[in-house]
């Protein structure tokens, strides 16, 4: 399938147009895209949408129910939940994407070297990746935070490090198949250096599985970051991180359920929209499902 994707690169229509053609017919994907767009817009514009400060407590306004002056109510310290949840959108999306970027930046080169160079490189790198994979991702992230110390930046780093194996193995697999292709052999015969072949001829062939996996992983990454925040590993409890907000709110579940409900729904909607969009996107990239072939 991946090989096929490479072979289809000569198709007539430009890629984005083809993706859109497919995506347009996928209702769920569209819903996801619209939701995600809204969340991204809110995240970007968050400081300008509401006049309330998401950080500073105001005890006289604590535990207000949704409606009235505060659309989504206030939390246990009187902070506006709407202000906090949209400020959290920025934090959650950035940490999701940041963690993903880290795992891509480290995981892809590992997979490429391991798959293309083979031999001792392959054995050594894959042994290391295997060790990483033998731990559940969350556990690995907790371990990383124990070493690095708590805080948003370390949280992102920890989650990023924990999902390196996913990309390393994915890229290695693709590389193993691609390096036996005739065009690679041809490049080698023309005297191209191994690094040039790996980067210019093999890596482009891995792009589509990488992109599909990456988009589908954003949701997982956001949930992992929120999970670690829930466990209190995010450092500053004042930061409007959704997982931490959920964890603080669960204490008051009987008294003021909205405090936990608001960030909970935010996580749900974001992950749902990313996944709906990601599925549609993956289908759109998949040449076997091209609409014009049906």
């Amino acid at each position: 399938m991946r090989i096929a994707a490479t072979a289809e690169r000569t198709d007539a229509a430009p890629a984005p147009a083809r993706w859109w053609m497919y995506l347009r017919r996928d209702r769920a994907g569209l819903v996801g895209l619209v939701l995600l767009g809204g969340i991204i817009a809110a995240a970007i514009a968050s400081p300008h949408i509401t006049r309330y400060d998401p950080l500073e407590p105001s005890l006289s306004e604590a535990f207000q129910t949704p409606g009235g002056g505060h659309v989504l109510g206030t939390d246990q310290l009187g902070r506006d939940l709407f202000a906090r949840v949209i400020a959290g959108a920025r934090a959650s999306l950035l940490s999701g994407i940041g963690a993903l970027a880290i795992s891509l930046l480290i995981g892809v080169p590992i997979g490429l070297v391991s798959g293309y160079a083979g031999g001792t490189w392959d054995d050594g790198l894959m042994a290391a990746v295997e060790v990483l994979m033998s731990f559940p991702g969350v556990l690995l992230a907790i371990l990383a935070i124990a070493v690095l110390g708590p805080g948003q930046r370390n949280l992102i780093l920890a989650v990023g490090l924990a999902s390196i194996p996913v990309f390393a193995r994915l890229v290695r697999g693709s590389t193993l198949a691609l390096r036996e292709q005739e065009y690679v052999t041809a490049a080698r015969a023309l005297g191209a250096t191994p690094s040039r072949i790996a980067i210019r001829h093999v890596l482009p062939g891995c792009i589509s599985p990488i992109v599909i996996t990456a988009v589908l992983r954003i949701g997982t990454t956001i949930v992992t970051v929120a999970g670690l925040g829930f466990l209190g590993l995010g450092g500053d409890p004042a930061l409007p991180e959704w997982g931490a907000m959920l964890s603080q709110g669960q204490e008051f579940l009987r008294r003021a359920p909205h405090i936990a409900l608001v960030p909970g729904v935010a996580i749900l909607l974001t992950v749902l929209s990313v996944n709906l969009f990601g599925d549609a996107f993956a289908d759109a990239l998949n040449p076997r499902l091209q609409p014009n072939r049906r």
Partner: protein
Amino acid sequence: MIRLFVLCVTLALLLALSPDSASAPAARGTLTWALHVAIDRLDPSASFALATGMAVGRNIFDRLVEHDERLNIVPGLATQWSSSAGGRTWTFRLRQGVRFHDGTPFNADAVVFNVQRAIDPQLRLFAGTFAWSGVRSARKVDEFTVEISGEQPLAALLNNIADSGLGVIMSPTAVQRARDPRDFVPTGTGPFKFVSWVPDGDLTLEANREYWGPPAQVDRLVIRATPTTSTRVNLLEAGEADLITQVPIHDIARLNALRGVEVAVRPATSWTYIAMNTSKPQFTDVRVRRALNHLVDKRTIIEKVLFGVGRVADSPIGSAYRAHRSVKVYQYDPGLARQLLEEAGWRAGPDGVRSRDGQRLAATLWVPVGRFPGGAEMAQVVASALRGVGADVRVQEIEFAAYLAELRRGPGESRIELVMAGWGTSDPDTGLRPVLHSESWPPRGNNLAFYKNPQIDTLLDRGAAAVDPSAREQIYGRVQEIIMDDAPWLFLTERREAVGWRSHLRGIRFIPSSAGLIDVRQASLSR
């Protein structure tokens, strides 16, 4: 071995309950107590765990002296005591006719055995460092008289023995028989006898019918480790637990409104504060420390964050202490705080943060995750108030093990700037020395502010040697005044413990010492 023991006591219990036996005392039913902390081991002399002191230490064992609800010293296994040689020697007259649960007679030999074991440096027992702190020898005078002495006056001895589970008197036979600590059967003289224990599960005890004092009013006492707050609350609501500790503060009002459930908020000797590291340039100036104290709106914090469960700190130690003196309260006054900071030369920069000689008034406030009820919320409110006058304070929640590790860093390498902490015992010496004496700087003690004041050191040393109650009161009163004035801490609140129980449970007592807290020895169930 344990199984045989359990079999024996079960048989004994069956015999005791059979109609042929002599008319049974009023003891009836099983009292189930969901405790918020877990027992770590069965030997209270080797454990600092609250649960071990409270559940094992209080019910299976007795001490030479005990605390009552007002922290007065009352007779326990000793009926009379006196001190001589300026408090260096204490003589205890022992209760006669008492037997341990295994039949071993209680006498001077048993006491000497326990003290010598506790202070044996090779065994490294907490009992030696805390309950019998400073004790050098124990001597049998006659069958029922013991003399305990130290090189320095033992002014805090009685409080230290009574305070926690560490001062227990255990059956020498049972201790000697247990070659391996895992074989140890906790055998004391207390109102309840050991039946079984499942780690992180139930500790099951049964009434000791030969108890020398007022007998237990229930047949069985089951203490269940239940660290999850919602589980404890559900057990109480469902009637599966008769008693729970640490009711979540925001749930008190709701539970109190339920039929058949009662919640009480009782004083504890412990308190919560934020230590300012006085060795850091931000906090060397007393005016800064006072200014920050004026920014903490303790009344609103107690009302809104702690749901009324707490008391504004008016002294470094809690008001349950006999030695407590109500010194003063730093009133909430941001204007005065600004003025003090200006006087001290801290001027606001372009970003609003104050600085002096290139040093920014910035700090990280550490809070351990989940250790203090409302701790993270209190920290956020305090940090926000401090930011309001140009002190850039950020809260960082840290996991408890990491917190403990940070607190053990010595001077020079300590990264503490502001840290939330708690303390509390029942004697002013153990209440103040480990947190304020300059010899108690980490890693040796818990003087987290790295506070050093020669006057305080001298007073604390004198207090530890003063046996006369009025002299102690005077010395520790002075210490409290100086500390409030010198403000090495942000004074927050005195703790209160919220305890919930089913209405049919009667006769529980609250003793505000380290491990006393809840005394169920006389509790009864009316169905």
